[in-house]
């Protein structure tokens, strides 16, 4: 997978967590996963289609999600509250939206779909031949996993360029 496509997601998650948790987050693990993905906490996924196609899953320990929810609502939030999955969904929206903005401004054209809460324990792989990169961020309130699975369609990019030139 191209690192220049992944880097905006890492930078965006890092910035958003620093803003919401008021504490540093650091990457403690990076793995490649060809098969499906097993959910670890509260998770949400965002799908995109276009020159870059794929899926990003944001998966948070409930304690970390509760910390973000507390920041966003301005009050104490318990890790068991029903709003936790919704919090992860909104956080995924922010992280992926910010990353997509950077990629789009670099010339990649694609459409982002609204985030969805992941309810099943096991997610299937995003597509054939698409290996996922899983990053684990450690925060003072628990771990945050970012599962990035995407493909760059160079052909679509070339087609677009040739249309533009002619």
């Amino acid at each position, binding site marked *: 997978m191209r690192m220049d496509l992944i880097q905006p997601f890492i930078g965006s998650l890092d910035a*958003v967590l620093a803003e919401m948790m008021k504490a540093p987050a650091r990457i403690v693990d990076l793995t490649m996963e060809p098969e499906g993905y097993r959910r670890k906490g509260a998770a949400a996924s965002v799908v995109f289609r276009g020159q870059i196609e794929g899926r990003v899953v944001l998966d948070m320990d409930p304690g970390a999600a509760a910390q973000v929810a507390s920041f966003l609502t301005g009050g104490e939030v318990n890790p068991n509250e029903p709003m936790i999955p919704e919090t992860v969904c909104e956080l995924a*929206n922010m992280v992926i*939206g910010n990353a*997509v*903005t950077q990629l789009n401004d670099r010339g990649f054209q694609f459409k982002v779909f609204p985030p969805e809460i992941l309810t099943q324990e096991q997610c299937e792989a995003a597509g054939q031949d698409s290996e996922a990169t899983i990053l684990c961020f450690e925060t003072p309130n628990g771990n945050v996993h970012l599962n990035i699975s995407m493909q760059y369609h160079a052909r679509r990019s070339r087609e677009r360029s040739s249309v533009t030139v002619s």
Partner: protein
Amino acid sequence: MKQFEALTRKNDHQAVRYLVVDDSVFARKSLAKMIESFGGQVVGEAGDGCTAITEYARSKPDIVLMDITMPQMEGIEAVERIVHEHPDARIVMVSSVGYQDNILAALQKGARHFVQKPVKPDALYEIIRYVLNDDGVTAPVGAGGEKSR
């Protein structure tokens, strides 16, 4: 949450009335909290563009906070339709997807401003104040807007 100098309507000194449009209930709650800290009143909520159009006609808000990526009808199309029906509508886009094409499209369809998520209350307050003052809806308050203790 920090409290701001209340933005009130110049003509009747009532609280500014907001319509909040976002498919995330959580995001709507978070924005409602900020609106409360600005001294405003949420008069309607919508989770997609279609509902936003009907809610706008029903609630006649002073200002709309509108997400872009939503199911059924996205925010930019909703802006176009609302502004077509209500040319004086004041709509501020609030979205995590802030690339130039999107911002430009929203502004071309009639949105007044754009705020990227995660939303900072100070930035949103300043933008709302700017948009409302520009139309003479609110009386100007001091720069920064933080309530004196």
